C-alpha cells in the first residue's frame, strides 16, 4: 500500500507492505537510522519518535497508521546546525554511555518537557519509565533532562 508521511518536515512517500512497522519505514524507506530497534516488544523505548509531536514507540505503530501524520526523529531535532537543547544537555551532562538508548531517551525527554516544561526529578524518572538504558546510566540522563528543562525555548 502507499503511505505518505511527513518525516522531519519532509514528505516521504513509499509503497510498502501493509504490515510494515513505522520503525522499519523510518530506517529502511526514509533512511533515517538514528531510531534503533531494541527489544522490539514495546518495552525498551529505543525506537521512540514523535508522532504528531508526542512520544510513541515506533516498533508498535504501523507505517500505515502513521500515514497522513507527522513524525519527528532524532535527526529532525537540530536546527541550522545547532543542537536541540535536550541534545546539548546530554552532551554537557554526559547523558550517555554506549549510546544505544540515547535517541529514544532524547525523544522521550523532548515529549516530556513539552507536556511538563519544569518537571521535578521524580517526574523525570516517572516520565522515563518507558525507556531502558542497558548501561544503567540513568543518573546522568535524568540530570540532562533537568538541565534541558532549565534552558528556555525547549521546542520540538
Amino acid at each position, binding site marked *: 500500500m502507499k503511505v505518505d508521511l511527513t518525516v522531519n518536515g519532509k514528505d516521504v512517500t513509499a509503497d510498502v507492505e*501493509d504490515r510494515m512497522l513505522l520503525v522499519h519505514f523510518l530506517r529502511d524507506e526514509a533512511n533515517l537510522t538514528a531510531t534503533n530497534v531494541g527489544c522490539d*516488544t514495546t518495552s525498551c523505548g529505543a525506537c521512540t519518535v514523535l508522532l504528531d509531536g508526542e512520544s510513541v514507540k515506533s516498533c508498535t505503530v504501523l507505517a500505515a497508521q502513521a500515514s497522513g501524520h507527522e513524525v519527528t526523529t532524532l535527526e529532525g531535532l537540530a536546527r541550522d546546525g545547532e543542537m536541540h537543547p535536550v541534545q546539548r544537555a546530554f552532551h554537557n551532562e554526559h547523558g550517555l554511555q554506549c549510546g544505544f538508548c540515547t535517541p529514544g531517551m532524547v525523544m522521550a525527554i523532548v515529549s516530556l518537557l513539552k507536556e511538563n516544561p519544569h518537571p521535578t526529578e521524580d517526574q523525570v524518572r516517572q516520565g522515563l519509565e518507558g525507556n531502558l538504558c542497558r548501561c544503567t546510566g540513568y543518573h546522568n540522563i535524568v540530570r540532562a533532562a533537568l538541565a534541558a528543562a532549565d534552558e528556555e525555548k525547549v521546542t520540538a
Partner: protein
Amino acid sequence: MIPVAFTYKRAGSVSEALELAAEHGDDAKFLAGGHSLLPLMKLRLAAPEVIIDLSGLRDLSYVTDQGSYVAIGALTRHHDVEHSDLLRREVPLLAHTAGQVGDPQIRHRGTIGGSIAHADPASDLPATLLTLDATLVAQGSDGTREIPVGEFFQGLFETSLEPDELLTEIRVPKPASAGAWSFQKFTQRAIDWAIVGCAVQDSRVGLVNMGGTPLRAATVEAALSDGAAPADAAAHAAEGTSAADDIRATRAYREHLARVLVSRALTEARSRV
C-alpha cells in the same frame, strides 16, 4: 519481529467500520491504539487477515459530563483520560489508573475502549471500570445496546461483544464519594503488567490478575457492609479467585498479595475522605 501479512483498512466512520467488520467476519480485528493487538501479532499469537484501523474516528475521543455519569468515547487515549480535568474531579480513580497503564509512550497510543475490548485480566482498566460499575455502549448493525460491565468480561480475552459490534462509549457513574478511592499495583519493573492489582471506590473492590477475568472481591465487600475493619475485610481478598501460577508468581503468592494490596487500598481510600 514482523506480523503475519494482513490487509490494512482504515475506517472513516463507525458505520464504515461496522460494514468492514460484517464483510470480513472472524478474519478481521479492529485496531484502536494497537498496543495490545500489534504486540500479539508480532509474536504471532494473533494473525488476523484484515485489520480495521479505527484511528480516523476522531469523534469517538471525548470525555463529557452527563450529569449522573461521565461519558468517555471508546477511542479516548489513556493520556487523555489521565489528564481530563472532569475525570480528575469526578472520578479520580479512573484518571489515576489511566496514568498507571504502561508508560508515557503507550499512554499516547492506547485507548480505554481498546483496553476493555481486549479484556486482559492483567490490565489495569478492566478491573477499575468493574469497580466503578461502568456501563459499556456497543454499536452493531442493528443499533446500539448497553452492557453492564459486570456482564462484559466472559473469560480470558473474551467479552460479550459480537464480532460485528464496536464498543463506542464507556459510561462511568459519578461515585458517591469521589475521593474515597485507591489503586494499588504490584509489579516487578515499572512498566510491567500487575502481578496483582486492586482498585477501591467507596466500598467496592476490584482485583487485577486474580483470575481469567477482572473480579470484584465480593466477600471483602460483604464484610465491609457488615462493618468489618479494612484489615479484617481484606483477609477475604483471595476468596473466590482463581489466580494463575506462572513465571512471575505462584498462585499462593498472588493470593497473599491480594490480601495485602486490598488492605492497603481500603486504608488509603478511607484516609482520603
